[in-house]
């Protein structure tokens, strides 16, 4: 579907639709610039036509140059392997827009984010509590992502208002931000009627470090390290998405060998995280032996990472234009040997889990996220796949995954067992993919391409182990970052958890939480 077709489809829904500008700067991006009055209608139409959640919704401050804020809304078009970005300009004096959240839930948290970071009000949004800048420590009126932001701390501090469930016998159990285990910070507030959970409210932002602001005004080449530290357990997916965005802007085509190596490293990262989550699920169900077994497999993969790349978390591999680490014959053999043992161990692990009746009973039908709910919330990545939504960037933006005949893992039931099975299947698929890609490495090819510095903006994306990692970058002509918007799949998926646990009991919560295994730091940025 090219851009004229998209416009024709939008016109079916909105007869007087007229775009101010339409362009296709890259093969996989369509930009539609619309009148602020049409923004809501266009976004809703695209949401329906592409059946895509709001993947990103963010503002850019361009008041200095032209006195406007630009708001962009990103949708994904899986059928045609492209991203559709709708944008509008709103003048500084009228810093507000009509809320999308009432019709598309997936826009809700993005709007809260725009409100707290830019002070642009989404009119009639029912929930404008702040997500990351907590009322207890950050006064209202300081908007950090505005270009002219200075800390004034002039306003008053206040308290956060939690949603309350009223009724006879309802009680609340607040948990966090510090939890019993070795885990990131987040606050969970359960409302219970007897044992079953009737409401779970999530409050995050404890790991907020102002990452997006840190990107601004710095040279693109110095920022890979920062990108890797947004969410440390998916360092490679982050640096990959960042590098891809910059490569699109500079117009670099990386060598075929580099894309093969990137795919291998990405799958290695997926493997160690999936096996960790599988072990974690076993532990949270009180089954400690598989957990110990899984952590040995994880350690084996981490040590393999260190041997082939010099870093246990696959950092410092990606650079703009390619990769720094080669996989030569010796390393290839090492990977093949290790994979054999890892596959054997993993097979044993799944046998133990599958043959334990009490474990299976515990995970089956626990924490169900229905397909309809997942769709409405805009769940993405692994969580969506476990609820029957076939959503995997490796499938729809395949690149070299195409020739490997990548198979998407899908489960219908949406419970903890489904997420466990998706992880198991993806682990096995990753092993197969790595073996396939290893055979395709061409010894004589180079690792990096040269490029010329250029300004512009582009969207970079990769399918990390949790789901899509998205980077929208705007780079100035001298190579300085003007705006960087990052969306981790956790940002869209956390809401899914609060629906999955409804009706379950609190002791099942850690199990559900581990089955989602979402990132705190990626959500809080």
């Amino acid at each position, binding site marked *: 579907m090219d851009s004229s077709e998209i416009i024709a489809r939008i016109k079916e829904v909105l007869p007087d639709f007229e775009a101010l500008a339409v362009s296709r700067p890259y093969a996989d991006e369509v930009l539609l610039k619309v009148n602020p009055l049409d923004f809501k209608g266009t976004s809703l139409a695209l949401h329906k036509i592409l059946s895509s959640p709001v993947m990103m919704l963010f503002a850019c401050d361009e008041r200095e140059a032209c006195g406007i804020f630009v708001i962009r809304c990103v949708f994904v078009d899986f059928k045609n392997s492209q991203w559709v970005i709708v944008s509008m300009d709103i003048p500084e004096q009228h810093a507000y827009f009509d809320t999308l959240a009432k019709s598309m839930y997936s826009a809700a948290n993005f709007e809260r984010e725009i409100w707290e970071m830019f002070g642009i009000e989404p009119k009639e949004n029912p929930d404008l509590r702040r997500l990351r800048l907590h009322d207890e420590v950050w006064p209202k009126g300081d908007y950090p992502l505005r270009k002219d932001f200075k800390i004034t701390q002039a306003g008053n501090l206040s308290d956060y208002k939690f949603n309350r469930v009223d009724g006879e016998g309802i009680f609340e159990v607040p948990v966090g931000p510090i939890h019993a285990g070795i885990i990131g910070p987040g606050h969970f507030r359960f409302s219970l009627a007897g044992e079953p959970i009737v409401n779970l409210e999530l409050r995050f932002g*404890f*790991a907020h470090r102002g990452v997006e602001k840190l990107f601004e005004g710095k040279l693109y080449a110095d920022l890979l390290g*920062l990108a890797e*530290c947004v969410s440390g357990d998916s360092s490679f997916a982050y640096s990959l998405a960042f590098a891809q965005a910059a490569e699109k802007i500079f117009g670099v085509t990386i060598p075929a060998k580099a894309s093969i190596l990137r795919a291998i490293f990405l799958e290695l990262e997926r493997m160690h995280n999936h096996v960790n989550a599988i072990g974690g699920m076993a532990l949270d169900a009180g089954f400690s032996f598989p957990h110990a077994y899984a*952590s040995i497999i994880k350690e084996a993969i981490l*040590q393999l990472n260190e041997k082939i790349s010099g870093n246990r978390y696959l950092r410092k591999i990606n650079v703009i234009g390619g990769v720094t680490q080669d996989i030569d014959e010796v390393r290839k053999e090492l990977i093949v040997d290790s994979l054999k*043992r890892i596959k054997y161990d993993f097979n044993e692990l799944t046998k133990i889990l599958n043959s334990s009746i009490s474990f299976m009973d515990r995970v089956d039908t626990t924490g169900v996220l229905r397909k309809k709910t997942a769709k409405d919330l805009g769940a993405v990545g692994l969580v969506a796949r476990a609820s029957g939504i076939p959503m995997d960037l490796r499938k729809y933006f395949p690149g070299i995954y195409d020739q490997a005949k990548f198979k998407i893992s899908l489960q219908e039931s949406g419970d903890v067992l489904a997420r466990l099975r998706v992880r198991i299947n993806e682990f096995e698929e990753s092993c197969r993919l790595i073996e396939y890609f290893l055979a395709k490495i061409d010894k004589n090819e180079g690792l990096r391409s040269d490029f010329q510095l250029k300004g512009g903006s582009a969207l970079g994306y990769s399918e990390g182990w949790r789901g899509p990692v998205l980077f929208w970058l705007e780079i100035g002509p001298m190579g300085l970052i003007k705006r960087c918007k990052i969306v981790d799949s956790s940002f869209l998926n956390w809401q899914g958890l609060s629906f999955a646990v409804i009706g379950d009991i609190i002791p099942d919560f850690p199990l559900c939480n581990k089955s989602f295994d979402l990132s705190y730091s990626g959500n809080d940025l």
Partner: protein
Amino acid sequence: MMRILKSRILKGVVSLHIEPELSKGIEEAGSELRSLIRKRYGRSLHIREVDTGSCGACESEIISANNPIYDLQRFGISFVASPRHADCLLVTGPVSKNMLIALKSTYEAMPEPKFIITLGDCALDGGLFKDSYYVCKGVGSILPVALHIPGCPPSPIDIILTILKFLRKKE
């Protein structure tokens, strides 16, 4: 159950699969660590871990230090769920403003004598995030820190060796 036992007998000790040099390093450091902890802390040093906004890699490595290969617990270091049970507070992350209150009250909840270890480059001075508007520049500016474990993230063996060195010095 029988299958697990059978495979256990056939397979032997799984942690032997790692390289002999590393394994030897862990054992040597560990046995010294054990004897020091036995002397000073009556067999067990209890640690409460607090994440003040780290990226998650440090947590992952602390968890790795507890896996059957390194197994910190057998040397007498255990991670506890409550600050009330802890001798030591292990802090990761650059201390986001939102975590400041929680960090301080965790420290206050710990019984005396107590000390703080920071882990990872962010916890020292904010690391990569030190210029941010929402980060307090490291734990040291807020609470007294006894030991810093450098690295981004430090590997499990680094964690073991740094704690060992520290306890030796304390002797």
